[in-house]
């Protein structure tokens, strides 16, 4: 198991290095002057000096300087938000996104799993069709539509939650629900599919034949196996949810990290582009490794096989 873990960590490091290299090439290739602040043009000498100051006049040097900083967890300055460093931007915004993302995933698990199990157990009935339809809606309706509807209904008409912002418990429900809806849909679908496969297995028939109660067969025997695809999905899903959603953050005025993925690219802020991408890549790798470990816990055969 330890060997497998070490191998995964090593592979993760290679993945992150590759992602960094590709992002770096793209970040320095796109046209546009990161130091230009407004409509007016900047003197050429000043731009040259600033590029020299941040080693941006020599891509090779910049590549290694940024990498050595990143290894020490120092991502350097941002060119868009002059008064802040990339570290501060990430330290301020990542916890916000992580909180909303983790709450969304927790909500999605609590709602999505029973929905999927219910659909599978009542396969072919109106309950199954209703579940499938709800899942389809959850996947197809974009978050900017569901978010806007929730905002207008609960924020404007009913006035029970604030319109955007961050800092109180009342600010949580709308972005969390909006963000969780597609995850609920995916988790419900994966659970339903997993359960349908498992419910047709011999060991389930054997369990029923032994006289085990229906509830126990479903939750104790079938679900444990049916959950594995959901567990695989949880790794990337959690990384994605915790690194923010541009749409949800923009809609609800949430100061998360998702907006920086988009804005940094638009602003040609190479430092912030690479910092945010590295954070995302690292979280993705870490959560995938965690899922691997959980796999071994849920299904000891995997650990034994290794």
């Amino acid at each position, binding site marked *: 198991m330890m060997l497998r873990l070490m191998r995964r960590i090593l592979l993760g490091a290679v993945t992150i290095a590759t992602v960094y290299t590709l992002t770096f090439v793209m970040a320095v290739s796109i046209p546009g002057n990161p130091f230009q602040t407004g409509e007016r043009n900047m003197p050429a000498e000043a731009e040259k000096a600033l590029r020299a100051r941040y080693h941006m006049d020599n891509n090779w040097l910049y590549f290694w300087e940024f990498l050595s900083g990143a290894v020490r967890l120092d991502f350097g300055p941002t060119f868009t938000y002059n008064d802040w460093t990339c570290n501060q931007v990430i330290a301020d915004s990542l916890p916000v996104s992580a909180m909303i993302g983790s709450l969304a995933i927790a909500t999605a698990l609590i709602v999505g799993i029973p929905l999927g199990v219910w659909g599978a157990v009542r396969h072919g009935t109106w309950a199954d069709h209703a579940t499938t339809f709800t899942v389809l809606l959850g996947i197809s309706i974009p978050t900017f539509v569901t978010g806007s509807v929730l905002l207008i209904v609960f924020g404007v008409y009913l006035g029970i939650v604030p319109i955007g912002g961050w800092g109180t418990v009342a600010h949580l429900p709308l972005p969390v629900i909006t963000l969780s809806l597609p995850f609920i849909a995916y988790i419900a679908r994966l659970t339903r599919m997993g359960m349908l496969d498992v419910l047709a297995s011999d060991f389930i028939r054997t369990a029923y034949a032994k006289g085990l109660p229906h509830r126990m067969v479903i939750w104790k025997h079938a679900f444990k196996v049916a959950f594995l695809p959901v567990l695989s999905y949880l790794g990337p899903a959690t990384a994605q949810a915790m690194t923010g959603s541009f749409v949800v953050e923009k809609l609800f005025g949430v100061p998360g990290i998702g907006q920086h993925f988009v804005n940094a690219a638009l*602003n040609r802020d190479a430092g912030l582009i690479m910092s945010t991408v590295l954070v995302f890549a690292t979280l993705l790798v870490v959560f995938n490794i965690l899922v691997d470990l959980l796999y071994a816990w849920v299904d000891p055969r995997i650990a034994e096989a290794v």
Partner: protein
Amino acid sequence: MFRTIVVACLTLIAAEVSWIALGESHDRADFTYVNPSGIHTLDPARMSWTQDFRVALNIWEGLTTWHPQTLEPIEGAAVLPPDVSADRLTYRFTIRNDARWSNGDAVTAGDFIRGWRRAMEPGTSADYAFLFTDHIAGALEYVRWRQECVAACTDAAARDAAFARCAGEMDQRFATVGIRAENDRMLVVTLAQPCPYFLDLTAFAPFLPCHQSIELLRERHEGAPLTAEGLVVYDPQWTKPDYHRNGYPGLITNGPYRLSEWTFKRRARLEVNPFHRDATRIACRTVDMLEYENLAASLLAYESGAVDFLTDLSVPYDHELARLAKSGQRPDFHPCVLLATFLLNFNCVGPTVAGRDNPFVDPRVRKAFTLALDRPQLVDKVRRRGDRPARSFVPPSSIPGYEPPAGLPHDVAEARRLLQEAGFPSGQGLPPIELLYVPSDERMCQAMAKMWEDALGVRVELRSQESKTFAEEKAKHRFMIARGNWYADYNDPTTFLDCLVTGNGNNDSGYSNAQYDALMAQANGTADAVERSRLLQAAEAIIVEQDCPILPILHYTDMVAIAPHVRGLHANSRLWFPFRYVSIQR
């Protein structure tokens, strides 16, 4: 197993909700407003956005400041009027006895010199260094020398010698710039030429003072106060109220308010500066500036009562808001007629653009395209926001003592005749005309393209670029026609007209006309206000009636929302809102 998952999830939810509940703060400020897209920087030397100026001019105070309604310069940190020499070149400002920083220190002439010097330094300065090089005696020479220094220090071959020379000569060179402190309370400024609007400039952000504590955060290289590249650099975190590296006390300002809290992309809290001379008379003791990336959400927050004031209503349905304001149904929506023009730049640089023929080097073609455009139609039917159609660069009836020329009307017959005269009858022989713009102008540009196609028989290709790429294309003159806009920096026609002087950094058309340059130079050297105005009008006539390097489309009218319980805020052409005069009457 499902039970384990549910218990884990519920525990997580409970922990996170408790965490945020414990950190909740319910203290609402006396006055809350939304600064759209937030603060880019609070360093006055680097500012170029209205929303940043708005915060800066509430927490700092220049030698003068602006009247909240008329925008006339009024007394700031200096006694008005200053002592001005007979040739209008030397201004002697006396700093008020009671001008104080937010830590109680007296504001000195040296603080202004420090602030102004930062604002003209290459690398520290941003868009407004030209205000110093254009107006202060010796500033242009100093900045040019500094730019040479920086270029030499970044050149690997001569780096060490250049650095030593720059560091050694820097203060000596700066002494030739027309800014000096006669004593702690007397600032003497020598101008390069008379400037009738100088007291207007001294209220503006780049002219704000800077407290001496910033020197604790200055970068040094080999003992000299410069970076290895020859730049003057301060730790950019100096604008934070809670930043204390190297014994720095946190941001100290001299305005009616001080910054007490600033969280990234969330909120800035202003509190009355207890040492300001008007501290006891300010009704709103605390002001919250909230950041909303989404303007529609900020409007919803305003409607729900969470916000008292919105400085920007540019939502996708703003034409509907303009209609409600115009019909009197929303008296809290106030139009602000801005000193700003939306325009198109014609490329006047050369006969080819990126390998294609550029017909716009011929003024007759530029004039034909100007005449063919129905600007009132664009304003009323396409934009529908209550802007004013433009025929001049300087907005009419906006600057006291100056009225721009009439400009060109909508005249398709004359446009066709001019195009024929230029050798393109019915548009034949013209290459496809490329119009470069940013996505926010999509509808306007489509409508203009259609107008030209219908009126002149030309083919127009639309090229939309997001703003950074657009800026680079424009700066390198890789366009035939490019959208542009200009917001006045001060209350004088030259803030617009200087842009088209040969070699000006913002002359995006690449236009050059010796007669125009001569008229502008003559106006700059003229003390008589009426004669100066006549000369400027003659100059503007060249660009909007004769040569047409730009095509003015409209003069912007923005809207702000002021809640009915707010008193003391006035819609104005600069979107300048001093909060010291605001009171709440619910």
